C-alpha cells in the first residue's frame, strides 16, 4: 500500500525549516457577524406534505430474489422531508466545523410557530434538533390551509434574533462601558413553498415591519438587543417536474437593516446541493478533495483501490492558494456543473508521527461532505484512531510540496496548514554559541525530572478554587516553590547530587506537608547525620576548586549549609516546614570542641594555600598529583577499614587516620617555601611507609606534629550529643 517513498527527502527538509506568519483574514476577526446567529424557519403547512417526485428506487435486490416475488414500488419523499433533511445537513456541517458560537435556532411554522431549541450552547446539536423534529412529525394534510403560514415562523425568528446569546451576554458583561461594541446581527434561512414573487415580497415586507417593531421593543429592554443587520435567505422549494413560480434573485438591500435573496430550487438532490453551497458561503467554508487514498476491501485483503474523499473546512486553509493565485495549480476542479469548487490534495506516504512538531500556521475543523459514504467513513475512522497523514499539493511544474496535514485531536479531525515557503529564521546561531553555551554540566536530567513534575493537566472548572485563583496560577505558584533553590549546574550543588537527600528535596517543595512528610524529612536528616558520623564520602564537585577540593568535614559543612538554604526558602510556608528546618539546625550543631577542631583544620588549609601564592606552582602541582594518586589508593583502604569503623565502640579520632597521615606531614614542610626534590622524595617514602603500618592514633590526629592527649574524654561528650539526637527521633 505504500507508494515508493521518493518524497522522503523533501518531507524531511520541510519539517526542519521555519516559516513566518500567515496573513489573517480580516473577515474572520468579528465575533458577532451575521454568522453568529442563524434562524431556520421551515414551513410545516399542509402543502409541504406534497411529494417531491424524486423517486427512490427500493428494489435493488431483485436479482438475488427468487422468482414470483412482486418488486417493490419506488417511493418519493415529501417536500417537508426534503427540507428537513437538507437543513439538518446544513446544521451537521456547521456544528462539525464550528462547535462553538455559531448558533442555530430552529423554528417550524404551520398554524402557529414551534421553536425547537434556544440559542444556548447545550441546545446546539443535531441530536437535539432531530429529537425535536421527530416530535413535530410530518405536516398534517388535513389542517386548515387558511390559518397556516410560514409568516408565524418568520415573526418568531425576528423576535428570537433579538434575544441575547450566551456569548453576547458574557461579552456585554465583560466590556461594561463599551458594551455597545457587542453587535447583534443575524440571518434567517426560510425553507418554504411560496406562491409567487408577490408572495415573497409580502414576506419580506412583513419581516421588515417586525424588525422595526422588535427593535423599538428591544430599545427599552435589558434582555433584548436591537438587530443591526439581518440577512434573509429565502429558499423556495418546488416538486420535480413543476415550473418554478418564484424567480431567483441575488442579494438586495431592502432597508439598511435587511437584505434579502431568493433561491428557487427543486426538491431532492438540487435542494441538498443548494444548501451545501449556502452553508459554505455563509460560514466561509471551502472544499478539499483528498485523492489517491489507498484502501483495501475487507473481503479482498489483497486488492487495493484508490478513493477520493471530499471535506469541508474554513476557507483560510486555502489562503495560501488564494493569495498566490495558485488555485488552478492546486488542482482546483469544478464539479456539479460549475457550482462548486474543490481543491485537490494528494494522500501522501510516508505518514508522520505524532511526536514531531510541525510548523503549522492554522488548524481547521473538517466535516466530510458525504459523511456516510464508505471511503469517507474509512478515512475518518483511520484518522480518529490517532493517525495523521500529510497531504501534498500538486503543482503545475510537476514539483510537489507538502502543504497540509490531517490529524485528529480528541475525536475531532483538523486540517492543519503546514508552511511550505522559505524561512526567515534559517541558519540561526546555535544555542551553544550564545550565553551559557560553553557550560557543560547543566543538570539536564534533573530539570527534565522537574519538568515532568510540573506537567499540566486539565482541572475541572467545578473543582474547588483555593484563593479564587485559576489552576494555571496554581501551576505557576508551584513552579515558584520548586525553584526557590535550584542550582543550574552540577558543580554548584552537593545535595541534589546525593541520593540520600532526594526524599526531603521532593517533599519540602510541597505547599502543605503532612505529619508523615515531616517524619520522612527528619529521617532524611538523621540519615545524613549518620553518614557524617560514618564519614561517608560526599559527591562534592572538585570543578573550580583546585586539586582535591575541600576536606570531608568541610564538605559536610557545605552540604549542611546548602540543605539549610534549601529548607529555609520554604520554612515560612507552614509550621511543618519550619519543623524540618529546626530539625536540620539542631542536628548539624556540633559540640564546641569539634567546631574548634574544624576551625583549626581550616587554618591548616589556609596555610596550605599560601605557598601556592609564592609562585611555587609547578612542583606543588606535581606534589598534588602524587598525593592525589595516593589519595585514590587510600580512599580504597578507607572503604575497607569502614567495616571496622562501623563498630560503635571504636573511637572517633581513628576515622581520619589515613588521610591525615599525608596531609599533616606536608604542610610543615611546605610552609618553609619551595618544595625541594628531597622533600618530595621524603614525602613519598613517608607516605609509602605509613601504609605499611598502623599510624599512632595520636600522630594521625596531631596538629603540626603535636598531639593532644586524652582526647577521648572530650569526644565522649560529642558522642552524647549524637545520642541525644537519636533519642529525639
Amino acid at each position, binding site marked *: 500500500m505504500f507508494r515508493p517513498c521518493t518524497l522522503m527527502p523533501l518531507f524531511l527538509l520541510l519539517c526542519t525549516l521555519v516559516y513566518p506568519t500567515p496573513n489573517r483574514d480580516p473577515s474572520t476577526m468579528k465575533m458577532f457577524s451575521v454568522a453568529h446567529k442563524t434562524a431556520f424557519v421551515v414551513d410545516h403547512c399542509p402543502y409541504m406534505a406534497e411529494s417531491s417526485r424524486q423517486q427512490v428506487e427500493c428494489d435493488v435486490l431483485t436479482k438475488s430474489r427468487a422468482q414470483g416475488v412482486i418488486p417493490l414500488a419506488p417511493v418519493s419523499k415529501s417536500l417537508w422531508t426534503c427540507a428537513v433533511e437538507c437543513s439538518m445537513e446544513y446544521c451537521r456541517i456547521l456544528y462539525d466545523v464550528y462547535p462553538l458560537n455559531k448558533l442555530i435556532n430552529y423554528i417550524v411554522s404551520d398554524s402557529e410557530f414551534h421553536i425547537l431549541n434556544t440559542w444556548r450552547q447545550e441546545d446546539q446539536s443535531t441530536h437535539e434538533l432531530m429529537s425535536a423534529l421527530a416530535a413535530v412529525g410530518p405536516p398534517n394534510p388535513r389542517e386548515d390551509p387558511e390559518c397556516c403560514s410560514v409568516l408565524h415562523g418568520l415573526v418568531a425568528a425576528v423576535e428570537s434574533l433579538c434575544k441575547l446569546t450566551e456569548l453576547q451576554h458574557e461579552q456585554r458583561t465583560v466590556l461594561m462601558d463599551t458594551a455597545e461594541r457587542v453587535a447583534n446581527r443575524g440571518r434567517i434561512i426560510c425553507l418554504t413553498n411560496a406562491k409567487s414573487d408577490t408572495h415573497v415580497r409580502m414576506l419580506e415586507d412583513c419581516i421588515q415591519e417586525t424588525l422595526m417593531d422588535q427593535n423599538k421593543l428591544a430599545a427599552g429592554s435589558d434582555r433584548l438587543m436591537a438587530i443591526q443587520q439581518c440577512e434573509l435567505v429565502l429558499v423556495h422549494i418546488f416538486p420535480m417536474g413543476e415550473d418554478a413560480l418564484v424567480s431567483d434573485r441575488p442579494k438586495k438591500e431592502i432597508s439598511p437593516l435587511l437584505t434579502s435573496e431568493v433561491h428557487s430550487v427543486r426538491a431532492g438532490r438540487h435542494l441538498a446541493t443548494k444548501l451545501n453551497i449556502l452553508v459554505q458561503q455563509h460560514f466561509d467554508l471551502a472544499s478539499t478533495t483528498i485523492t489517491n487514498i489507498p484502501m483495501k476491501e475487507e473481503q479482498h485483503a489483497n486488492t487495493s483501490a484508490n478513493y477520493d474523499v471530499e471535506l469541508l473546512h474554513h476557507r483560510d486553509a486555502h489562503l495560501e492558494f488564494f493569495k498566490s493565485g495558485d488555485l488552478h495549480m492546486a488542482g482546483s476542479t469544478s464539479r456539479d456543473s460549475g457550482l462548486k469548487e474543490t481543491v485537490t490534495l494528494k494522500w501522501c506516504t510516508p505518514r508522520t508521527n505524532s511526536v514531531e512538531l510541525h510548523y503549522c500556521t492554522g488548524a481547521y475543523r473538517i466535516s466530510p461532505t458525504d459523511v456516510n459514504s464508505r471511503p469517507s467513513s474509512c478515512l475518518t475512522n483511520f484518522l*480518529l484512531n490517532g493517525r495523521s497523514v500529510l497531504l501534498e499539493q500538486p503543482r503545475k511544474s510537476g514539483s510537489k510540496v507538502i502543504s497540509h496535514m490531517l490529524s485528529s485531536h480528541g475525536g475531532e479531525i483538523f486540517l492543519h496548514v503546514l508552511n511550505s515557503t522559505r524561512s526567515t529564521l534559517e541558519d540561526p546561531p546555535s544555542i551553544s554559541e550564545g550565553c*551559557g553555551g560553553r557550560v557543560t554540566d547543566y543538570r539536564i536530567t534533573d530539570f527534565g525530572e522537574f519538568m515532568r513534575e510540573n506537567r*499540566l*493537566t486539565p482541572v475541572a472548572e467545578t473543582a474547588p478554587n483555593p484563593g479564587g485563583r485559576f489552576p494555571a496560577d496554581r501551576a505557576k505558584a508551584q513552579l515558584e516553590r520548586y525553584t526557590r533553590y535550584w542550582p543550574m549546574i552540577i558543580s554548584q550543588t552537593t545535595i541534589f547530587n546525593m541520593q540520600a537527600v532526594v526524599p526531603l528535596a521532593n517533599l519540602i517543595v510541597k505547599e502543605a506537608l503532612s505529619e508523615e512528610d515531616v517524619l520522612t524529612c527528619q529521617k532524611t536528616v538523621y540519615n545524613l547525620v549518620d553518614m557524617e558520623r560514618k564519614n561517608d564520602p560526599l559527591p562534592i564537585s572538585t570543578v573550580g576548586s583546585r586539586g582535591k577540593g575541600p576536606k570531608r568535614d568541610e564538605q559536610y559543612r557545605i552540604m549542611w549549609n546548602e540543605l539549610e538554604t534549601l529548607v529555609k526558602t520554604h520554612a515560612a510556608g507552614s509550621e511543618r516546614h519550619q519543623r524540618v528546618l529546626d530539625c536540620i539546625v539542631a542536628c548539624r550543631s556540633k559540640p564546641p570542641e569539634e567546631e574548634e577542631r574544624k576551625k583549626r583544620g581550616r587554618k591548616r588549609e589556609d596555610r596550605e594555600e599560601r605557598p601556592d601564592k609564592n609562585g611555587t606552582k609547578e612542583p606543588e602541582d606535581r606534589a598534588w598529583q602524587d598525593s592525589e594518586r595516593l589519595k585514590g589508593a587510600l580512599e580504597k583502604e578507607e572503604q575497607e577499614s569502614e567495616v571496622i569503623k562501623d563498630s560503635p565502640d571504636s573511637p572517633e579520632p581513628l576515622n581520619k587516620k589515613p588521610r591525615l597521615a599525608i596531609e599533616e606531614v606536608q604542610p610543615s614542610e611546605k610552609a618553609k617555601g619551595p618544595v625541594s626534590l628531597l622533600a618530595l622524595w621524603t614525602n613519598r617514602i613517608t607516605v609509602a611507609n605509613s601504609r605499611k603500618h598502623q599510624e599512632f592514633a595520636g600522630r594521625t590526629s596531631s596538629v603540626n606534629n603535636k598531639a593532644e592527649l586524652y582526647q577521648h574524654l572530650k569526644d565522649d561528650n560529642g558522642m552524647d550529643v549524637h545520642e541525644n539526637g537519636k533519642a529525639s527521633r
Partner: protein
Amino acid sequence: MPTVVVMDVSLSMTRPVSLESSEEFQRKNLAVHGLTMLFEHMAANYRLEFTSLVAFSSLWELLVPFTRDYNTLQEALSNLEDYDKTCIESALNGVSNVVQQEWGSSCPCQVVLVTDGSLGIGKGSLRHSLQTLKQRADDKKFPLPFPFPTKMFIMCVANSEELQTTDAMDNLEELLRLSGGDGQIFTMEGQLCLKSVQAMFGRLIDQAYSPFHAVLHCGNLSSDVQVFPRPEPVVVDDEVDPMPRVVNTDLEIVGFIEVGDISSPPVTSRHLVLPIAVIKEAEDVSTGAAEEPEEEVSASQMAGKSPNFCVLLHGSLKVEGMVALVQLGPDWYGMLYSQADSKKKSNLMMSLFEPGPEPLPWLGKVAHLGPISEAAENPYGEDDSKSPFPVQPSIKRSYAQNVTVWIKATCILLHRLTFQRRPRPSIR
C-alpha cells in the same frame, strides 16, 4: 520579517541641499547617510534580519537580493547611480515580485521606501497612479495591497512643510492606506542636514528595528532574552476588542506538556529566543546578544561560561521531548521548544498561539490547566503510559457518531445494506 529597502535614484534626488556650511550635499547623500546608519544598526543589533535593496526610477532594479551581509548592502549604497524620473508604481511591482519569489505570499515584510517627496510627473507618477486606480484591467492592477502582510515605512528626505506645498503628502498617505495602513511616513524636522536625517532614521530604528528584550521566567529561575523577530501586536477582533495586544516583556512559564500532547498546534508566528548577558550600564545594547561582533568576543566568551537558564531549559526540553507553555499576556499563550535545523544546530524557539483563553481545543482552556500534583492520581500514570490530553469535546462530531444522512438515494440503500454485512474498506 524581511525588509526591502526601496531607494529612489531619480534625478530629483540629486537636488542639492542648501546649507550654510562649505560642503554641499545632495538629497541622495543624505538618504545614503541615513540608510548607512540603518544598516550599521541592523548589523550590530538586528543581524538575523534579511534585507534586500531595490533601486528605482522609471524602472526598478534589484541591487542586492535578501541577505544578512550588511557589507554588501553598504557597498551597493555607495555605488548608486542617478537615473531619470520617479515611478513608485513600478517600484512597488518590483517589491511585490522580489518578496513573493523569495518568501511566498504569507510572510510579513517591511518595506522602507526612501524618496524625496517629488513623486514623478505625468504618466507613471504616483498622482497619476492613484487617480487611475479604479480604471484598470485585471492584469494591470495597482500592486497595493501586497498579497503578503506589509509594514510600509516611507522615509521622505524632505520636511513636512515642503511636502504640504504640493499634494505629495496626501498621495503618500493614500499610498500608506492602500498598503494596509500598517506603517508610517517619516519626514525630516527642520533643516535638511546630516543631523536631521539621522534623527529621522533613528525614529525608524526605534519603531521597527530595536531588538525585543524580555525576561523568561520559570518560577525563580530566569534569563534575559532577545526575541527575534520582534513579536508584532495582534488585534483579536476589531469590533469587540480593537486594542492591539502586545507581548509582555516578562514571559512566564506556566508548566510543561509533552510534544505528542500539544501535537503540532497552529501558531501565528515563531521566534528565536536568544539568551543575552545582563546589559551593563551605559553599554551598547548589543553586548551579549547572541551574534557578537568580533571585538567583543572576550565579553561573549565570558557570557558563554556562566550558566544560563535558557540553555538548561533548551537541553531538557530537547531530551524529554516536551514543550513549555508560556504566558505572553492576559489570555495569550505560546510555547517554548527546542528546534533543530538541518545542520544539527539547535535552538530555543517560541511559537505564539492565537490570543484567547482557549487557543488549542485539545488542551481546553489554558487557565484551567493545573499542576498534576493537584490531581487525585497522576493523570500521566505512574509509568507515563497515560495522558490527560487531548481533551474530548462534549459533543461528538458527526463523523465520530453513527449519524445517517439520507439525502442521496444511494445512502438509503447503503443503510439497508449495512444490515447485510456491507463490505468496509480500510486504509492500511
